């Protein structure tokens, strides 16, 4: 089972490495099976898949502590699973079931899990970036040394909310790590058509006085982990926010309804040559930490885990109609009708 780290860990021992590989496989399989369920109309709404970006979530969240806060945007399945969400809770949410991680009220774009400090997937581009600063503000206010990590796509770089939050995060040296997962596409608009400056590290950290602004190859999970750990250490030491440009690539369209006419088969094939999971398998084989047999066993376990999650989700009950009026306010909600 994927699980969040109990302590901020050094990079990296065999057990840790194999767990990271396994987490990436869980995310990949969870999402590819979700695509099939979406096509069979079991999953509704918008469904934004993370395939190709797994090393970014697993490598970064993997070096954080359990009491750190993790918040992300609408492409949130990977971050939730990397944070230790049970695949069955995620899959039940996709199917809108009562046992889903948000009781079937959130859906694909709004995964939440409070007991793992997974502060949610948020579906208005850039809107959650100030929330992350608020969580970091709370850590500073209380004098604890928790860190908040906040993920968003390159499209969010163009939102005013990001720049307002960055300004205050830098001004007040808040313990927050902002990770732009630069997959080069703001929905269907390539970076060179939505950003005048293509080096996002120039747009992110320096104008706001961050402690660092760094680019990292996010297909390399250990590079991602190392960069994040350094950022977390700076944040805990009171040195303020770090901006990380995680260079990545998504294999699928923006959402399941996106036919991806803006990219060629050759481009996709080239990207897949640097698949983060395959790359890490090679690394771990070279270290002698895994072999064919070990990989096959791991894949079989992951397959079984996801099969079980889907079976659970399909069989799980729908929320009762009385759930319409619960969870609106803490005190009993009085419908104004």
């Amino acid at each position: 089972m994927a699980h969040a780290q109990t302590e901020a860990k050094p990079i990296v021992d065999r057990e840790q490495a194999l767990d990271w590989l396994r987490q990436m496989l869980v995310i990949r399989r969870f999402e590819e099976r979700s695509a099939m369920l979406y096509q069979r109309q079991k999953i509704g709404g918008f469904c934004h898949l993370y395939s190709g970006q797994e090393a970014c979530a697993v490598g970064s969240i993997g070096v954080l502590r359990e009491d750190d806060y993790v918040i992300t945007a609408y492409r949130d399945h990977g971050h939730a699973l990397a944070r230790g969400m049970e695949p069955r809770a995620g899959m039940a949410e996709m199917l809108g079931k009562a046992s889903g991680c948000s009781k079937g009220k959130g859906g694909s774009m709004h995964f939440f899990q409070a007991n793992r400090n997974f502060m949610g997937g948020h579906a208005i581009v850039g809107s959650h970036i100030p929330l992350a600063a608020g969580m970091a503000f709370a850590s500073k206010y209380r004098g604890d040394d928790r860190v908040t990590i906040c993920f968003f796509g390159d499209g969010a770089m163009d939102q005013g909310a990001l720049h307002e939050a960055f300004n205050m995060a830098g001004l007040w040296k808040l313990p927050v790590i902002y990770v732009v997962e630069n997959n080069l596409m703001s929905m269907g608009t390539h970076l060179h058509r939505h950003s005048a400056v293509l080096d996002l590290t120039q747009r992110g950290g320096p104008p706001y006085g961050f402690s660092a602004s760094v680019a990292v190859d996010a297909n390399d999970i250990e590079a991602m982990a190392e960069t994040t750990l350094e950022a977390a250490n700076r944040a805990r030491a009171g040195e303020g926010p770090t901006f990380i440009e995680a260079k990545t690539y998504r294999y699928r369209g923006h959402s399941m309804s996106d036919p991806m006419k803006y990219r060629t088969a050759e481009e996709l094939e080239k990207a897949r040559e640097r698949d983060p999971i395959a790359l890490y398998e090679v690394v771990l084989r070279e270290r002698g930490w895994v072999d064919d047999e070990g990989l096959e066993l791991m894949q079989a376990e992951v397959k079984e885990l996801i099969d079980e999650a889907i079976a659970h989700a399909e069989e799980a009950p729908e929320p009762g109609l009385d759930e319409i009026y619960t969870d609106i306010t803490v005190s009993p909600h009085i419908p104004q009708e």
Partner: protein
Amino acid sequence: MAVIQYREALNQAMSEEMERDDRVFLMGEEVAEYQGAYKVSQGMLDRFGARRIVDSPISENGFAGIGIGAAMVGLRPIIEFMTFSFSYVAFDQLVNNAANMRYMSGGQFSVPIVFRGNSGIAGNLGATHSHRPEALFSHFPGLKVMMPSTPADAKGMLKAAIRDDDPVIFIEHENLLGDKGEVPDDPDFVVPIGQADVKREGSDVTILTYSRSVMTSLKAADKLAEEDVSVEVVDLRTLRPLDMDTILASITKTNRCVFVEEDWYYCGIGAGVADRIYRAAFDELDAPIQRVAAKDAPIPYNRTLELDILPNVERVVEAVNSVLYR
């Protein structure tokens, strides 16, 4: 009981709650070193320090979101909008995040936050600074909306808002900030959310109203009393959730109703309240509900035009006479 200003009552409410609970802090533009653009937070920086009285950049969207994030992890922020017109810059944070967070997360995250500041048509400020956002925010399930009319209510209602575990939109009125009144000094004096108040007893007509229009309505009631018309003035105080018990008790007593509000007529608060009264107590009414609201135009700078847009005593008297068929 001491006689203090509405703005001082707000200050007392925040200060007492901050004294009581370290999780409460105030953030906004000019709230600290400048002592508050409208002097509501005067003296609070000296008393509580810069950790808890936080001057923000002019970034409503940003600091509203910071407040929500802090609330999600257990703090109890008070976010001041210098005027509520500026809250529209942060509209996304208020309605997409604060109002929805608990629901979207299946009840896992509460957002105990107060967004407060003044609103209203206050004197030659032109269209942008004269908004009345109450109907807008009252539309959203997940938000609570309060608008005090007196200094005592300002204190008791703000304390209730700060103690509440849900996001509260707390709208003050610029023209009431200097009003004086008796205010209890009991630190546990709280006016509960969702409790209307009969500001004047009467038997012939009920005026339902809130905020500054309470004062306009009370003046109209005085004038009508000279003609032996007995008007009951009910101050809604909380616009969401509505105190239907108090409203219906008054309608049942007087059988006639006028709604007075400063916001625009179309889709205004009165429209929603009238609908609920018609469906709950149509048979109690001896006349259609009359509504007095601002005229349907952006608010002009010119003082003569501006005053003409506002509900005034004459219009309220006219509406009362109309439901009495006088």
